[in-house]
């Protein structure tokens, strides 16, 4: 039961699963608030109060959510026949409409290509990765005698 890292990945994988088992796969979207025991609630309110007290300029986030827990949205694509289950979780409101329209496309039987998500993201990663590796190799060969510690420090500071 993996949680997928991005919306795109979730929609893509779900599309694949739906393609393979269109009749039995279901998608569940759960909008839920975290369950809190009284002690937890107390703790959260305390820490909120502390934050407010310590940073008087940054009262904005606490003002917008007056001691209410943050709800989350969990999406689950499940195929009971094979036991495949894909999940995605978010707490950002801005992602909701994108996810829901994505689900609409999936319900309409869209495949991965027509979701229009897969190509560019993967390509960029592929281009970036080798370049980064080369850099690492270069710095390694240049400062080989310096040892692991020095290398790490130098890399972080310059970038």
């Amino acid at each position, binding site marked *: 039961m993996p949680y997928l890292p991005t919306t795109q990945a979730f929609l893509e994988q779900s599309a694949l699963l739906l393609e393979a088992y269109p009749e039995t796969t279901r998608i569940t979207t759960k909008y839920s608030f975290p369950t809190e025991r009284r002690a937890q609630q107390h703790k959260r309110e305390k820490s909120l109060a502390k934050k407010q007290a310590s940073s008087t300029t940054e009262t*904005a986030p606490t003002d917008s959510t007056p001691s209410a827990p943050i709800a989350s949205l969990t999406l689950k694509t499940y195929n009971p026949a094979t036991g495949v289950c894909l999940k995605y979780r978010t707490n950002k*409101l801005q992602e909701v*409409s994108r996810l829901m329209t994505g689900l609409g496309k999936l*319900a309409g039987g869209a495949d991965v290509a027509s979701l229009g998500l897969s190509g560019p993201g993967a390509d960029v990663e592929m281009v970036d990765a080798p370049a980064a590796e080369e850099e690492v190799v270069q710095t390694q060969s240049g400062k080989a005698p310096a040892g692991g510690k020095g290398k790490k420090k130098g890399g972080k500071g310059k970038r």
Partner: protein
Amino acid sequence: MAPPLSHDEFFSSLTNLLSKTSEKARGSVSLTQKPLVDSASNSPPSTLIRITDGNTSAPNPKSADKAGKITKNTSSKVKFSTVVKPEELEAFYTRYAELCKSGMTGMKKRDRKRKTKAKGGATKAVKA
């Protein structure tokens, strides 16, 4: 199970349920979609959408004495569904997504100004 609702009824029930849940800041709402397979016809299947609040009506024995009154009043499980035909899918989901966005008010909102401020402060703190 009760017969599927019309889209308008469905949307109003969902709005109601989402706003109630958000107000209480407790509990959850589950929205499930699956194809409604009709073996008789070869046309693309309709989509069945089911909503429930996941309320198990059996009261929790631990909290029975404290929350007993409350659970007794609201113990009935909310459950409703609708069927979307393939040709209505797009219009339905546009409305559905909009409704979800406006109903799920308990989630993190996007506040550009505030967020950038907070972020700037955070990164500064990390660097220092």
